[in-house]
């Protein structure tokens, strides 16, 4: 297959810098709290009603407040970049269900496996990352080029 790079949208420098900031957050969380910065795991653990004692909830809640509040803080420095969301209501629901179910079953998402797991040289996370990127390529192709 022939790859055509979308040069106008390609942002190697900003993406690398943003990625480094994500990595810094993951490093801070493991050094300061001894925890993995996997967003699906942090959210899932926060929601695990009755299974998790309060001290195990607090750091999750605090981290997620910082994450969710980041758009608000960003606006003080620069206009917030647009999020172009083309998915219909039905697609949003189906994709949300798949992401929620899949990340619980697979024990992680792009952050937990893709960033933290790979930087820990975890074979499990490598397999998970290859699996979700492969599946993403296939489903994207099917949805955008065959239907």
């Amino acid at each position, binding site marked *: 297959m022939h790859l055509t790079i979308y040069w106008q949208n390609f942002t190697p420098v900003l993406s690398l810098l943003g*990625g480094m900031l*994500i990595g810094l957050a993951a490093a801070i969380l493991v050094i300061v709290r001894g925890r993995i910065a996997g967003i699906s795991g942090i959210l899932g653990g926060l929601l695990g009603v009755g299974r998790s004692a309060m001290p195990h909830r607090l750091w999750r809640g605090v981290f997620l407040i910082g994450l969710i509040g980041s758009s608000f803080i960003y606006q003080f420095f620069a206009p917030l970049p647009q999020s172009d969301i083309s998915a219909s209501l039905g697609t949003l629901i189906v994709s949300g269900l798949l*992401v929620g179910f899949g990340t619980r*079953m697979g024990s992680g998402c792009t952050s937990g496996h893709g960033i933290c797991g790979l*930087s820990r040289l975890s074979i499990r996370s490598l397999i998970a990352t290859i699996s979700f990127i492969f599946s993403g390529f296939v489903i994207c192709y099917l949805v955008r080029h065959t239907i």
Partner: protein
Amino acid sequence: MKNIITLLAGLFFGLGLIISGMTNPAKVIGFLDIAGLWDPSLIFVMIGGIAVAFVGFKFVQNKSQAIFGESIHLPGRSEISKELVIGSLLFGAGWALAGFCPGPALVALGAGYKEAFIFVIAMIVGMCIHDNLFKTCRIK
């Protein structure tokens, strides 16, 4: 103090997602759509993230406690289970459909996008369905 630093870590994580362009689902789909005009930016996000996080994980590698005395919780499993692969394949499918994964969806929710709100609610329902079906909620 440790909670203030944890709040900042969450903030940095979100700012990193915004700066890298990952809170824009169209850009994520631009990476996943290898048959269209391909935007490889996501690879650079991963390289930058892994390079810096690697140093953090090296730092705690032989330590038993984090700096405020809490124990370090690192995943200890090494088996390649079918749950790992099937779950990740399902996640990738959902990721490609809307262009959202959990982190960027929460940041977009914070920015006020109602689509992100719908996605996050569905994602939480999906998590609950899994945990109720399999009773394997692993919280350490």
